[in-house]
């Protein structure tokens, strides 16, 4: 079986076709021979039976008149039938009456033969028949025939069958060689294509066949498979290319995150430290303030230079206090509770508390009319920080303009609230100095400050506070023309 498995498909198909033909012929021939032999034997028995009947009838009168000579003469005509080797007539008592013989033979039929009438053996056929005259049994006849004719006929038949089989197999062979290509050709083409694909690793190759049978399906599936491999390869290559870029991007992001993390840690540490320092500084500063106040009270009012000095000290104490407030603000924990605040009103209150230079023209357009849920004190700090930045910018512009002796300097601050769908927006639009481009990118970086004083926590604190309110801060600025700050907060913050 292994040999059959390893045969080439063409040889296999040819062998299958030839084998089927051979088996079919063999079986049909076998059964035909058996059937033929049987028919031949039956015919032989019938013929012999008829012959026995005829010979018997011919000998009725001889039997009737006991004329054994005539009977023997009649029997001798059997030499015309060479297959009859022995024939005998018996009278009604079973006594041998006349016989004809080509061989030495016991001249009596076996009891079994007398019973059944005929016996078919391999080599011979025996017939035994009664002879009837006018309804009366007057004797019997016994014929013994050889079966050489059957053997001769069988031999002829076998030769014929062998010849037919040979011719049939020859035809089948040529037929199968042509017909098996219907199956083998596409399979071979598939095999060679598969080999080509495997050796060249070229998945763009396709097989071609237009048939709706299983082979057609196989070809389609093969092509589909190649397409999928091709597609997969392409995707894989793209992934490989993308991956490098992706890794770069991720690395960059990671670096940034790490930087931020470090900064946050730094800030946290700073917050802790500065809170402690500020706290420790506030008491001595209070004492210094009280002392300065006492000094200014006890200093005569006409001592102008002394008062100037004291004022300078006082001013610087205020500044120190401001710095301490800023630091504490940064480190101070959240106010415990949010409360509903009417934003327009709140803004007005904050603005009224501020000392404003009369040279600045302040426009207020508070038309939102909404209340928002906020940490009131923290939000106030954010607004003050933005406001201070704007005022600072205006102050600096004024100082710069004075220095250049310009007469018409625009010093405007426009503050407005706008309800934009679900968001409340607060704008601070000033015409101050603006922020130089190279500094702009650092405005939200903690501890970065361009001011001559301050610790650089103003905008980072604003951003932090706005984040706490799920809102945000945006700054637009152009040097020497002014800045616009936008704070925005959702009307309904999610908890």
């Amino acid at each position, binding site marked *: 079986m292994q040999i059959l498995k390893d045969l080439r498909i063409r040889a296999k198909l040819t062998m299958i076709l030839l084998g089927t033909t051979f088996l079919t012929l063999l079986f049909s021939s076998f059964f035909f021979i058996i059937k033929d032999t049987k028919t031949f034997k039956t015919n032989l028995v019938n013929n012999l039976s008829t012959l026995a009947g005829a010979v018997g*009838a*011919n000998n*009725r*009168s*001889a039997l*009737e*008149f*006991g*004329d054994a000579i*005539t009977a023997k003469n009649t029997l001798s005509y059997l030499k015309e039938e060479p297959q009859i080797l022995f024939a005998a007539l018996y*009278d*009604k*008592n079973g*006594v041998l009456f006349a016989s004809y013989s080509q061989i030495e033979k016991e001249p009596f039929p076996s009891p079994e033969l007398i019973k059944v009438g005929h016996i078919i053996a391999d080599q011979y056929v025996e017939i035994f028949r009664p002879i009837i*005259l*006018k309804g009366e049994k*007057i004797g019997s006849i016994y014929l013994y025939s050889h079966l050489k004719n059957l053997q001769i006929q069988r031999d002829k038949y076998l030769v014929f069958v062998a010849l037919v089989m040979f011719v049939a197999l020859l035809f089948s062979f040529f037929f199968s060689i042509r017909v098996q290509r219907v199956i083998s050709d596409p399979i071979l083409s598939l095999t060679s294509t598969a080999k080509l694909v495997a050796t060249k690793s070229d998945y763009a190759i396709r097989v071609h066949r237009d048939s709706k049978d299983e082979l057609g399906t196989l070809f389609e599936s093969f092509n589909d498979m190649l397409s999928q491999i091709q597609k997969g390869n392409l995707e894989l290559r793209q992934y490989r290319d993308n991956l490098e870029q992706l890794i770069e991007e991720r690395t960059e992001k990671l670096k940034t995150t790490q930087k931020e993390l470090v900064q946050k840690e730094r800030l946290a540490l700073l917050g802790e430290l500065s809170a402690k320092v500020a706290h420790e500084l506030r008491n001595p500063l209070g004492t210094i303030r009280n002392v300065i106040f006492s000094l200014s009270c006890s200093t005569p009012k006409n001592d102008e230079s002394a008062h100037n000095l004291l004022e300078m000290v006082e001013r610087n104490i205020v500044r120190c206090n401001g710095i301490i407030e800023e630091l504490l603000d940064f480190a101070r924990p959240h106010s415990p509770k949010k409360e509903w605040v009417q934003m327009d009103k709140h803004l007005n209150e904050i603005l009224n508390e501020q000392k404003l230079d009369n040279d600045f023209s302040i426009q207020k357009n508070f038309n939102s009319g909404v209340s928002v849920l906020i940490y009131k004190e923290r939000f106030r700090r954010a607004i003050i920080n933005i406001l201070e930045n704007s005022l600072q910018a205006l102050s600096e512009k004024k100082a710069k303009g004075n220095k250049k002796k310009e007469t018409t300097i625009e010093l405007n601050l426009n503050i407005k609230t706008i309800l934009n769908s679900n968001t409340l927006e607060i704008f601070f639009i000033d015409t101050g100095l603006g922020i130089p481009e190279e500094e702009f990118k650092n405005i939200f970086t903690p501890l970065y400050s361009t001011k001559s004083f301050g610790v650089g926590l103003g905008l980072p604190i604003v951003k932090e506070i706005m984040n706490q309110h799920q809102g945000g801060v945006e700054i637009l600025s152009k040097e020497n023309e002014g800045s616009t700050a936008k704070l925005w907060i959702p009307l309904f913050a999610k908890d």
Partner: protein
Amino acid sequence: MFLGAIVVILFLVLPVLSIAKNGDFNEYVVKAGFLYSFTKFIDWPEEKSKLKSNGKFYLCLFGENPFGNVLKNLAKKRKFKGADLVINENPPSDDLKKCHILFIPKPYGSFLRSLLKVIDKAPVLIVTEEDGLIREGSGINFVIKGRKSKIRFQINRKAVEQGGLWISSELLKLGIPN
């Protein structure tokens, strides 16, 4: 059975037969059996059928009866052409035409010619047992042949058939040349 007995006896008594003289009892046993057997191979015309002859088969004898009781015994056991055998010895000349078989034993063969005239081509089978009678117009003539003195017979087919009888070729082939 009876014929079988005859055959068996025939074989057994052949040596005896060979030395037996004419008129021997056993010879007529065989001849009686032959007469019976003839009827199996010969058909009589319609007018002599069993129906027309009142179920009788007439075996007529001329002169002395050489059969003794053999025929009588045969009549008890056998039907001739399905009819009862009636032995009619020396019938009146008017009744001769009624006979199915007329047996003329020896030495009455010389009466054959005149008997033929009386019968006048009526369907009667004439059986004789003297040499030369077959050419005289006898239908069947018994002869003794061979070293074993076997009883054979000659057949004059023309003589048998001119009365309207039909004779089987099976019987004809057993007849020895005239």
